[in-house]
């Protein structure tokens, strides 16, 4: 694929549009889903099924005044929300939705996405630090220790997959899994993974995605019953809006990665109608699970969270890595 200027512009616009639309309508989906779980109707007044709610909320947020608390670090305070949204959008560039729908495939796609993902915690740190609010400050400290703790098992699990695929190219990883459902990386023995522990890898990766995106039950950064609203306590208007959209964009990225690494990307489980649909289906099923989990569980504690990572996830994922390496060597 030749990179032309038009190509780039279209890709960027599409990525932003996709991220923004997703963020807006995932809020709607989350509210509807939560409502159904709690046996209420949820937003249902504005438009059919309340579908006009997200644009109206957006207009409301944009119409509000952006206040900066006195004594706050102005530059950092303004940068933080942008930084929350920007890496998420950038990551979309390299995600392959299907054989043809990809803005720019890179041979180091995995690396690029992780590089951008780790920028996300920076925005939390910036926001918490610059707000000049003790709650925000505590929240950002938590967010950083959380990010450090969960990037390790996440990366180790990714390395396991990369080892099986023998490539860091996302396209290549999907192609390897596309022969049949049994070749998906999540399934052990028959396909390419040969590894009984792959379902656990999937679980570890999924848990890490939850933690990386600061979703319940790991939403310690914004633990509303303790830290009021955490790092975005002092943000109003679109500053808050960007954080909110960034969170959902990150969920989409995380789910995309899970789909690509473990669920065979756009490949169809039964060989029928291959195409982007399958990717979208898997993606939204994962996102629905995110929402489902959030409205089921209470929040963990910060030390429970770190214990989970350092005592359970990291040893297990390391063991998994060694085991897989051994299996690859043997077979």
């Amino acid at each position: 694929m030749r990179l032309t200027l038009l190509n780039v512009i279209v890709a960027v616009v599409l990525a932003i549009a996709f991220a923004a639309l997703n963020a807006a309508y995932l809020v709607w989906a989350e509210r509807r889903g939560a409502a159904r779980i709690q046996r209420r109707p949820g937003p249902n007044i504005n438009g059919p099924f309340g579908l006009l709610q997200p644009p109206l909320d957006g207009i409301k947020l944009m119409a509000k005044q952006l206040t900066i608390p006195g004594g706050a670090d102005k530059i950092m305070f303004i940068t933080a929300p942008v930084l929350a949204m920007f890496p998420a959008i950038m990551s979309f560039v390299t995600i392959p939705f299907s054989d043809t729908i990809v803005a720019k495939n890179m041979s180091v796609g995995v690396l690029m996405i992780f590089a951008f993902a780790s920028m996300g915690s920076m925005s939390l740190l910036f926001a918490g630090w610059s707000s000049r609010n003790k709650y925000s400050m505590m929240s950002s400290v938590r967010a950083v220790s959380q990010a450090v703790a969960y990037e390790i098992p996440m990366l180790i699990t990714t390395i396991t997959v990369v080892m099986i695929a023998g490539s860091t190219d996302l396209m290549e990883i999907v192609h390897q899994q596309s022969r049949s459902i049994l070749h998906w990386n999540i399934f052990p023995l028959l396909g390419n993974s040969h590894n009984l522990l792959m379902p656990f890898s999937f679980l570890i990766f999924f848990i890490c995605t939850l933690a990386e995106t600061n979703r319940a039950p790991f939403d310690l950064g914004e633990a509303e019953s303790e830290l009021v609203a955490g790092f975005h306590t002092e943000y109003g208007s679109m500053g808050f809006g960007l954080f909110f959209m960034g969170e959902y964009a990150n969920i989409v990225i995380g789910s995309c990665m899970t789909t690509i690494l473990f669920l065979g990307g756009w490949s169809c489980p039964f060989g029928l109608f291959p195409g982007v649909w399958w990717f979208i289906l898997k993606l939204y099923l994962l996102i629905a699970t995110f929402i489902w989990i959030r409205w089921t569980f209470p929040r963990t504690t910060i030390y429970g969270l770190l214990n989970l990572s350092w005592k359970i996830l990291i040893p297990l994922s390391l063991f998994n890595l060694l085991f897989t390496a051994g299996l690859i060597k043997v077979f």
Partner: protein
Amino acid sequence: MVAYFTEIFTGLMSLFIGMGITFKEFFKPTVTVSYPYETLTMSARYRGHIELVENEEGNSQCVVCGLCEKACPSDCITLAGEKPEGGKKKVLTKYMLDFTKCSLCGSCVESCSFGAITFSKEYNLASTKKEDFYFDLLKRLEERNT
């Protein structure tokens, strides 16, 4: 080591059980009433603010004994009456309820031995003005009759 793995396993199972419950709830019908669009009828004993009871002629049954005024813990009730010329009983001329102070305890209704006041079923009582809650019950009675 065994304990370590059993804890992980039981922990995971407990999470799946929880998710199973919310999954089941997801498909159950909603239980809420979307309030301004649909409303419930209040139960027979519902206590709204008080109201005067009318007799056959459409007048109040009140004999202006003032017991409700005395029974009220918060001094919400002010009433006045006068004897009409030739009449034997006092007739109510003013019955004001200061609903801002009323706590709906029902002491006034209980104290009335003539059945002249009762609870209304009104509960949509939002307003931005305090004056809206000084009810002239006699006027409300007349309005009801016309």
